[in-house]
């Protein structure tokens, strides 16, 4: 089925895409206009407001989520693209853990990495992916792996400490 050209670019909400995917281990089904980003769909359609919006163009990392095992700037992915995907957001990270926080989230608190907290969900997701792909990162590797996530409170040093702390915890587990 090829869509026809009867649609003007400006006509909003005229067409809806139904997306079925898994979000934090539960299956989700939303109906969204095609231009809707995954970020907006998570926040508005699914009420998962832990994923934040700042730049909306891939520069800040506040909207970072993990899709099929890899980090994605959810502001640069259409919700429609998530069909059949397995999505992990900050809300799903500590689910089932005592106190609702995973070891990484605990480490962020322990290391004093949380200031205003707005960038933190994105930071946590980027750090989780970093540790999954590199369980024992050096400081340089952490800085490189996290460099897509801005923190204007500039808790960068504390976040590096939190990632190192988590790596140590996981190594002895």
């Amino acid at each position, binding site marked *: 089925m090829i869509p026809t050209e009867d649609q003007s670019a400006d006509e909003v909400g005229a067409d809806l895409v139904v997306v079925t995917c898994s979000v934090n281990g539960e299956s989700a089904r939303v109906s969204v206009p095609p231009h809707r980003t995954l970020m907006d769909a998570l926040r508005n359609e699914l009420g998962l407001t832990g994923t934040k919006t700042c730049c909306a163009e891939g520069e800040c990392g506040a909207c970072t989520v993990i899709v099929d095992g890899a980090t994605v700037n959810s502001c640069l992915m259409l919700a429609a693209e998530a069909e059949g995907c397995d999505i992990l957001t900050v809300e799903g990270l500590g689910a089932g853990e005592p106190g609702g926080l995973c070891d990484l989230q605990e480490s962020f608190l322990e290391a004093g990495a949380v200031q205003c*907290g707005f960038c933190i969900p994105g930071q946590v997701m980027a750090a989780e992916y970093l540790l999954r792909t590199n369980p024992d990162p050096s400081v340089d590797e952490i800085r490189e792996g996290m460099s897509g996530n801005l923190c204007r409170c500039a808790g960068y040093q504390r976040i590096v400490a939190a990632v190192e702390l988590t790596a140590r915890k996981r190594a002895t587990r």
Partner: protein
Amino acid sequence: MIEQHGSEREALRTVGAPIRRYGGAARVSGQQDFLADLPFPDAAAVALVTLPVACATVTGIDGKRAMEMPGVIAVVSAADLPQPVPRFGISHQDRPVLADGEVLFHGEPVAAVVAETLDQAEAGAREVEVAFEERPGVYNVDQALATGAPLVRDPSRRPEDDENRDSNVLETALYEWGDTTAAAGEAAVIVENTYTFPMVTHFPIEPGGTVAVPTDAGGLDIYSPVQHPYLLQRTIATVTGLPLSQVRVFAPDPGGGFGGKQTPRLEPLLAFLALQTGRPCRLVLSLEQTFQMMRRAACRVKARTGFADDGALIFHELHCDFLIGAYADVAPRVMTKGSYVGAGPYRIPHARTASRAVMSNTTPSTAFRGFGAPQVAWATESQLDAGARALGLDGLQIRRRNLVNVGEAFFRGPYEATADGHWHEALEKAAELIGWGQPLAPGRGRGIAVAIKPGATSGLSQSLVRFLADGSAIAYAGTSDMGQGARTLWQQILADELGSPLDKIRVVSGDTGVVPFDLQTSASRSTVFMGNAVLEACRDIRKRVLALFAESTGVDEAMLSEAPGVLITPDGELSLLEASRIALGALGGEFVGQGTARMRGRKGHPLGGDAAFYEFNCTAIEVEVDVETGELLLHRHVSVSDVGTELNPIQVTSQDEGASIMGLGHSQMEQLLLDDHGVIRNLGALDYRIPTFKDVPVELITHGIENHDGPGPYGSKGISEGALLCTAGALGSAVSDAIGIPIRDLPLTPERVWTALHPDAADHPGGEEPA
């Protein structure tokens, strides 16, 4: 000031410990609700209409086509508001709710579209037709001060007796002691230079926004992540004519403020939209819009400084022009306060600082961490280095020679200000941590700088604390918790003073409907002012427990005494909880304590009053310069602040690290670039660069000097701005040490450093069309 005895300090359990951030768990798990996360199911969305130029006369606004668009509820322009269009502001009520016949800066809204959905509002906004004629504007200090320059504000809008009404100068300040002209003859060396500090923007990661909700009673609930809810409440009441009791402000914790979320901007507009449509109206800003709502004043400083042979300052003269923007906001105050400490924490026999707040067709500048001090410190610190170079001294020697000792005046005259801390300790500590005097690898340089910033000069903070029947406690404290972790400190104070476990303490803030008045969260004032209010409220509770205990048990009050967490009776110590149970008896209940911290201003004082404390910082940097590219690699960055007492060491460290890196932002890479129409060219995250993880110095070391000599609880002082006051000076000094050439314009981008090394290759960055 609250007396604090050594033994009592030892009794503290949580104060001084690295207690985890209050509200931290919600923030790491995504549960913390910031403004954009609050659900308003029946809210209408708002989109703003703006022009592609910075300065224009608006000749017509036609919303007919927009009104016909699907979902559009209202198209509102100045003509739809009460006439004359209400204006608001702190010192000058000059900012219109919506552009009124003219646009004075890029991004100033001329109309607003309210629609059922955001997509519809934005589509509607694109259909609003605005007829306008661009006017010549002024976008930098030179243009604004040129003879015959277009005036940002028509003289008819200014008081008749305003001597500057025919210019773009909004306000001036002059601080002077001694006689700089006469003193020039005594100087062995005189250095004279001009320095510039760029326009930079706060770039909070939370862009912010406002939701205005009409209430059934005809009032308004305003939701906005402001640092200053009571000011917003007053502003809304004033522009709408509603009584204060009908305006309730909910201030969700800001996702970063840094001064940028202090003053009202679009909230009055949202209030009118809500009143006119009868619908909750919601506007969540884009990052680009946030750039257009807040920035730091740019500054040009002409400095002339004389030194004796031994490096002692003889005189120091500064002419500071702050480029403030199209409306006053708090910029005049930024100018006066930043200039007040402009000459630096030095022993200067003759000084003169003459400053101007210069209007321009740019985003109104506002409070920004450091509040005018970093701009002038850049010049003063660079001048100290220039003097040192001329005299064959180094940066440490010349500062040792001139830095005031505790109790000594750095600002002279009737409103003299003296050092309220052992600042030399910070200087020496920073020198030690940077390895001053040790051999440097080739291509490297070291620099050191100091600066001060006055804390709050007057104000009122109030707090209520409830000590509940089970020993849990609630503090009501209006301080907004924007990242500095204010609530954590209140929690610590309650825990220690009442003996309540940390996890049984709640802190309520951000709702003018239930929390008592607090002036604002700014000038690093909260720890001192609100801290003392909270402390006093806790002690009030202990006194009440004591009194009621005496009454209930018949023990003579004189036989009882109280101390943190306990009531001391003739039979021994009781925990405060136990004592309160006995005191309350079968009826139960709770204790409510009240605390107030009020600081009165001083009449005639140029700042309105003496500063409650000064933030002092010394920063030292070791940098490596790639002379082929001009790139800088910071090997070590040391920041030492005079903190009085670290109430929570981990929060002090994170504030100092954060401010240091923010300081590197304006020192190394940040600047708003405008085109010939005053349009921001690097509007947004793509071309406005702030430091990332990879821009953090190889080693970043912060240290707090603790002499327990502050006016805040347990001898604390305000922190959180200090570490960016003199970052630029330290970096500039290190770079010039490495390359042998001083650079006087910020930021020190690779291109600027390279250009300094290749003066012949002059070429304006950004001169031609983008690729």
